[in-house]
């Protein structure tokens, strides 16, 4: 740990032009293979030499995975290899699901969005600095969490739902996808399975070494947004240190079906506070059927922080969580 590395070790790159070929390669090489999308998370791991896969399967040549298209029921399918910038600029996404475009635009920097993919964004690894620096923690196959002791620097870690590991999910698009009830289409060999966005992300209590359901051999093919929440009021807000580049300290995506000022249905999802994006069901249940006003928002904020367990340096996230959930119900979405 903390040894400084910065040069990519040897690797053998495969550049298939079809998903079938990619899946075949992944099947052949199993856990020796690494899926390479935009490479922005990937190259960090390689340069730090914390991960050294023998084989790298680059999805960049598979055009079918880059498509974004409307589907019959009114929803949209986004290929896993669509770049964040494609999501930001896509006219249909902007009109039907503006919060997703907004969230994608709030991620990282323009140059990263020009290459980084939505599939990579939801499949990227956590930013826990201990883990990324190669400390042999639980997530790296060890049996300790370096980030949770009182002496640790855990400003950016969990306040909710930790189980041994306190790393958080870093994605900005993830909470919106969960709020919009997106479906993740995953293939393994010839088998396709559809996983709800909510279940796509896995916490340490299920598997401490993974952030998503993806296992060696799996490929995320596309993300399907049903029309369910297309006309809804969807609020996204991200809080980060600088006005750009930074991962969320906390972000929130709240989708509300509203009628006559009343909340008919609602999904409240936050990220940056737990190992996965989390739906705040208690909040949803408490405010469903209520008027959307200051009082309801206040109540939502208070319920959101029930059961939080902050660490030495991240107590501020409790306030953030409360305030963001409150705002997400009370305020008008900013969007693009």
């Amino acid at each position, binding site marked *: 740990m903390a040894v400084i590395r910065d040069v990519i070790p040897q690797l053998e790159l495969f550049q*298939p032009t079809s998903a079938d070929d990619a899946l075949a390669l992944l099947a052949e090489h199993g856990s020796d293979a690494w899926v390479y999308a935009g490479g922005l998370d990937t190259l960090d791991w390689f340069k730090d030499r914390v991960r050294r896969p023998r084989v790298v399967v680059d999805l960049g040549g598979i055009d079918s995975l880059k498509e974004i298209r409307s589907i019959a029921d009114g929803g949209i399918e986004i290929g896993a290899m669509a770049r964040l910038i494609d999501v930001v600029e896509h006219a249909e996404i902007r009109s039907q699901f503006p919060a997703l475009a907004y969230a994608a635009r709030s991620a990282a920097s323009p140059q990263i969005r020009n290459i980084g993919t939505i599939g990579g964004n939801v499949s990227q690894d956590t930013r826990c600095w201990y883990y990324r620096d190669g400390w042999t923690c639980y997530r790296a196959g060890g049996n300790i969490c370096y980030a949770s002791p009182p002496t640790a620097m855990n400003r950016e870690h969990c306040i909710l739902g930790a189980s041994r590991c306190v790393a958080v999910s870093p994605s900005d698009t993830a909470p919106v996808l969960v709020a919009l009830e997106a479906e993740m289409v995953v293939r393994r060999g010839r088998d396709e399975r559809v996983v709800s966005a909510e279940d796509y992300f896995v916490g340490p209590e299920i598997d401490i070494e993974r952030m998503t359901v993806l296992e060696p051999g799996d490929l995320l093919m596309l993300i399907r947004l049903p029309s369910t929440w297309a006309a809804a009021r969807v609020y996204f807000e991200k809080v980060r240190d600088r006005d*750009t580049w930074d991962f969320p300290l906390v972000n929130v995506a709240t989708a509300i079906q509203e009628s006559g000022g009343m909340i008919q249905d609602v999904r409240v999802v936050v990220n940056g506070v737990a190992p996965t994006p989390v739906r705040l069901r208690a909040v949803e249940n408490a405010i469903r059927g209520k008027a959307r006003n200051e009082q309801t928002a206040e109540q939502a904020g208070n319920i959101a922080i029930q059961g939080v367990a902050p660490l030495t340096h991240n107590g501020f996230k409790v306030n953030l969580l409360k305030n963001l959930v409150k705002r997400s119900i009370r305020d008008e979405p900013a969007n693009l």
Partner: protein
Amino acid sequence: MGRISRRSFIERTGALAAATTLPTLKLRGAAQQVDDQPADPAPTTRITLRVNGETHELEVEDRWTLAEVLRDHLGLTGTKVGCDRGECGACTVRLDGTTVYSCSQLAVWADGRAVSTVEGLADGDQLNALQQRFVAHDGPQCGFCTAGQLMSASALLDDTPNPTRDQVREGLVGNICRCSNYNRYVEAVLDGASADAPSARALTTVGALTPRIDAPERVTGRARYTGDVRLPGMLYARVLRSPHPHARVRRVDTRPAERLPGVRAVISRNTCDVVWTSGDSRNDRFLFNDPVRFVGDPVAAVAAVDRHTAEEALEAIVVDYEPLNFVLDPEEALRPGAVEIQPGGNLSPRGRGVREPEVYERGDLDAGFAASDVVLEDAFTSKHINNAQLEPRVSVARWDGDRLTVWTPTQGISNCQRDLARDLDLPPADVRVVCEYMGGGFGNKNQCQDSDLIAAVLARETGSAVKLEYTRKEDFLGVHGRWPTRQYYRVGATRDGTLQAIELRGYSGLGPHRKSSGGIAGIELFRCPNVRRVVHPTYTNMTVSANFRGPAYPQGVWGIESMMDQMAHELEIDPVAFHLKNVSRAYLDETPYTSWALPECIARGAEIFGWASRWRRAGAGDVAVRRGVGMATGAFSARTGRSSAVLRLDGDGHLWVHVGVTDIGTGAKTTMALLAAEAMEMRLDDVSVVWGDTDRCPYSVGESGSRTTVQTGDAVLAAAADLRQQLVVQGPPRGDAVLVAEATTNPRIEGMARYASAAHFVELEVDVAVGHVRVVRYVAVHESGRILNPLTSASQVKGGVTIGIGMALHEELRYDRATGIPVNPGYYGARVMTHLDTPEIEVHFVEPEDAYGPYGAKAIGEPPIIPVVAAIGNAIFNATGRRLHELPFSRDRILEALA
């Protein structure tokens, strides 16, 4: 199942064959003798790259990044690497028109695609319109981020020909400028009017708004920085560093590394006992120390045929450490029983052997407090932050017989030469130091660096030229940053707002070596009869601390100005009035200033800012977004001193100014040319500067302490006076004849102090629900004597203020206390300011007469950062009624304070 071809769309490359196809190059690292190549060659792929319209067919290793191929294999070094991690933007190029980070992109990805780099912008020598605007608006300071800014700006303007200011900031936001010339870059893209005006006391050339004379080099990628130097047969070096904050090094086994093919030399404590004298002024700091005393302390270094092999060799070195206790906090380090970091204890000795804190006293402190109506006590903690100049440390060394040449980004070629000669036991004449261009430093490239020495030793061992590049993370851990402090104050005043007593007890963490003073400055800004300041510069096992822009000031001024702000608040006095009453009128209430305009800066600033109508007493209201205003002051020495210059007038009437400056981004070259042109009554175009090479330049003071303009400038003027005298006597030289004049000046100022000063005013908003601080308005009024070049001077102010805002709001190297390991080194972790975080900074100058310095000029590089943290802290207090006692004022601290 058959094996799937590694390249299923190789045929795409054929489509481009119509363009100018060059023969395929077989490339490999630094490519030397075949027998020296790594045994197990990495897989390669043939690609076709169209770069700036020219087609190249290349065989590249699959793992090479696009930046690596452009820079190392196509020689297109205009594209810079600042972090290699997608965290800075220096490497931005366009791929089929879209901006990407070429460091975070495999080269094979660019196969068959069009790559545009900065080299493609100009048409021969003709700069394109955008480049011309970058020059005219003083875009590049050090210029290391410029290529990236240009590529992002070009892409933006292709899409949006008439962008708004916000669109420009959004469009360029993926490009960090650590010189923080963001305002200038935005201005250049908009090509809008700027607020700059010539000096109120302009002469003929001096005082005009003059673009840098070397800006065209910096906007075209032609400027050669140390990392761009590539010598025949050059090896690449890497350093193995300690993962422990304090440990004995029981054994270093380098043999497994030495046995790897392609490895040419491995050095460690076993074989190298060179002392790096400028790494520590009080103790012996070896290149490789035992014990190692901070995470990142060098343990061994390798030279190999390419970077990849060198990295592999590091992994093969076996080190056996015996971890020792460690201490991070300076106060803890002074407690009895704390582990001893240097022999003799953790309080850094004041002089040779004197282990006492630094004490300054005047008057009678007890009497002062007794006479006070109000006495306030408080404590402040500032953090270690990194200089984070965009160009990481890199050194190239080559021996020609017994003579050593080192290319290195240094703030002082003369000092660097002297230090290298001393440490390697060479006559100074046998050491040549070259620094053509450098990508900033802000104080951490002052001295000769260990990288210079390590490269030199490896070059001697191998008989080849050696390039040692530090990674961004290494630069954060292995060089130095600002020293952290804890400051305990007691301040007393009478009801009428007159200061009676100031006491400071301070601790500063030096890391395990004394590379600078560890001082805590700022008290001298105030007039007060009874003062006592005790500072304890202390060894700790944090990374080394030393100079960073305005070294002892920004944190010290934050402490004392917070106390003053609080005092004004308690006494219900407007802070401006309080300052006007109490700021210094004589240095330490004793020595007169050569000229002094701090009160005028305060008054002017208050007027421009509209202080009287904006200020109200702190803490009112509980609205969601709270506004507040704050102000603070600063001053910085502008003393005269020794430097040299040689002027040569040719028969064709061209003047050559030989000065040992390197121009870290301050515009030193331009300033020297301006001074020579003014003094010789010549056109600037007829003056050239010879700089950055100890073989061609006389001694110059290092570009630190904001001394270059004053000291080297004085030498230029003295040499010019001599030259003019010769002209009178001999007439102008004709044909091959030349006239030469040289001067070494060291003017003394008897019985007076010489200081530049500043007053800053800020208005900001605090969004209480999310802990966000947004600077709405920033007015900086500076007195730096006569302003020789208001364009570059205002850029210095804008940059200094912006770095200061980053220090106030974001930056901190955070440590894991259980292991002593810093967790967030690097650009992303440091959260340095970006285009979007940077407000417009309004700059104004007050220009009094001053009898010293060139045409009365004073320091301008360091003063701008000094008042910033204090002004922001005071404005946050004004907005929220809460005073924050620990830096940075990041969202966590704001939210906790307001909870």
